[in-house]
């Protein structure tokens, strides 16, 4: 009886030949990361409660300031000060304002086969590079930061077999929204979502990360795509050469297998206030918007910015509508500058923001008021997440957000691609 790639990564991390779903393992962690959403709590537990002296390995602990950056209040400035002090004391890497934590990790740290624990729910993003990432709270994180180990239950795996090719105006973002709509916000609770099939071979790095990033919105512990030449080349191009390639065995056991054909996929949208309330954009009717947002760990990479620019080029966003764009990292920002995308955005009337969690996190910038409607490429549309408790968030692709910003109502991007 074979193993899935997720089981193989967990077996390696726990120094076992075989693990099976339901096994509880103690695993060694390859990397751990925490951001300014909760690191102040980790530091308090570490110093005051555990009275710990050392992190397990300064090379494997990463702090990233991305949630409230630059700080918008004296309180978050204190959080950042605490992180800087701790990072300096323990000689661990600290990033501040250079990008959303998961994008920084993908650019600078992640390689296939790793087990990565981070104090953020979207840690499952690293499955895009064939690494097992999962989010924990600050108590578990503090223990990992101290010992380098964590206990985990080996989850069941769900397989998503994907065929066909994306049609123009349809993206990985639409696919993951469609899948979450089908299986529900707890359809993969505690499980691994493994994305594969003939179409996966053509997926770009961005596509893979988009799919795995939102696995947690279906409740999953992790999302994974098998690392192939595309991933190996990317990781090597970033100067990382050591990796462990894990492939699912032919006789691996999946709890369930789902089939999707990209030829049949159209632009999708999640309506307020649940990520699994998903319909095709063509069925949404007339919905006026007040603000659009393109960015976040799900959808702020270069390919999404290109898709938005294709639609915005030479056009102006609708009167009284705001469009906010935050590239997922400074590397993405610089590439967008080089490709002339920033000129297109600014000339269209969009506001270009620094690289950070931004509108998706709902406290730092671009907060919306009572009764306002946001269409976003962020990760969640929970009630009140973007500001006032009585406001609404729709989730869609960067192309759909851009098209909607031009018309002022939610708009199918197909046919608007210049």
């Amino acid at each position: 009886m074979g193993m899935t790639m997720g089981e193989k990564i967990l077996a390696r991390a726990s120094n076992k030949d075989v693990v099976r779903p339901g096994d509880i393992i103690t695993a060694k962690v390859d990397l751990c990361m925490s951001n300014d959403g909760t690191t102040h709590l980790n530091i308090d537990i570490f110093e005051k409660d555990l009275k710990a002296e050392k992190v397990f390995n300064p090379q494997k602990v990463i702090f990233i300031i991305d949630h409230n950056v630059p700080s918008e209040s004296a309180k978050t400035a204190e959080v950042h000060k605490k992180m800087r002090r701790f990072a300096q004391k323990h000689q661990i890497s600290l990033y501040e304002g250079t990008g959303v934590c998961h994008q920084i990790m993908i650019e600078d740290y992640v390689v296939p086969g790793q087990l990565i624990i981070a104090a953020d729910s979207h840690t499952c993003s690293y499955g895009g590079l064939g690494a097992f990432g999962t989010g924990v709270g600050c108590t578990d994180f503090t223990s990992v930061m101290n010992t380098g180990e964590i206990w985990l239950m080996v989850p069941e795996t769900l397989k998503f077999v994907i065929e066909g090719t994306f049609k123009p105006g349809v993206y990985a973002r639409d696919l993951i929204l469609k899948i979450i709509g089908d299986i529900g916000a707890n359809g993969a609770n505690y499980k691994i979502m493994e994305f594969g099939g003939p179409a996966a071979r053509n997926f770009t790095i961005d596509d893979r990360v988009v799919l795995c990033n939102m696995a947690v919105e279906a409740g999953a512990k992790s999302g994974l795509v098998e690392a192939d030449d595309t991933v190996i080349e990317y990781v090597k191009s970033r100067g990382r050469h050591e990796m462990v390639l894990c492939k699912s065995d032919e006789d691996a056991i999946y709890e369930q297998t789902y089939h999707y054909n990209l030829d049949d996929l159209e632009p999708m949208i999640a309506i307020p206030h649940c990520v699994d309330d998903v319909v095709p954009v063509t069925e949404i009717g007339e919905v006026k918007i007040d603000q659009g947002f393109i960015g976040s760990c799900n959808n702020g990479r270069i390919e999404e910015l290109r898709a938005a620019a294709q639609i915005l080029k030479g056009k102006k966003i609708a009167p009284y509508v705001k469009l906010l764009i935050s590239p997922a990292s400074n590397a993405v920002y610089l590439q967008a500058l080089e490709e002339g995308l920033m000129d297109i955005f600014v000339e269209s009337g969009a506001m270009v923001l620094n690289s950070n969690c931004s509108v998706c996190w709902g406290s730092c910038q671009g907060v919306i008021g009572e009764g306002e409607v946001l269409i976003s490429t962020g990760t969640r549309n929970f009630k009140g997440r973007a500001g006032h408790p009585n406001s609404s968030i729709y989730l869609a692709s960067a192309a759909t957000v851009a098209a909607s910003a031009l018309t002022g109502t939610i708009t199918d991007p197909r046919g608007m691609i210049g």
Partner: protein
Amino acid sequence: MKKIFSGKVWKLGDDIDTDIIIPTQFLALETVDDMKKYAFNPLRPELAGLIKPGDIIIAGKNFGCGSSREQAPEILAALKLNCIIAKSYARIFYRNAFNNGLLLLENNEIYNFCNEGDQVSVNLENSQVSLGEKTFQVASIPEDLLQMVEAGGLVPFMRKLNSK
């Protein structure tokens, strides 16, 4: 810890997410006591002020979905709820809750029978929850997890073990 207790029910629906439990804008408040006043603010702003120590929340599926913010179970523990009984929980929240001394029980049916304000009794010895004449089975919680809940979570539990 107390194995038999009862409490007044507050009833919430499906998919109660972490942004509802504690919205982002209150996360930087300095203490848990400052934060707990805003529990469930986007959904029912008055609720945090009404919850009394020993009360019980009964909810639908996927309670605690969303972010890994540990302030969510932390403030619910600070409100001194006896426990939460939901149809199911999101993975990260489940782990965080026990780590913060918040007892979670799982049952699919009681939700369909109870009303807000009802009195519910919990017996952890036989893993049963009763509502009037009806009883419902919950999965048993291992003794060491109960001890962790009693100690107030993983960190105080470890401190207690280390001092022995």
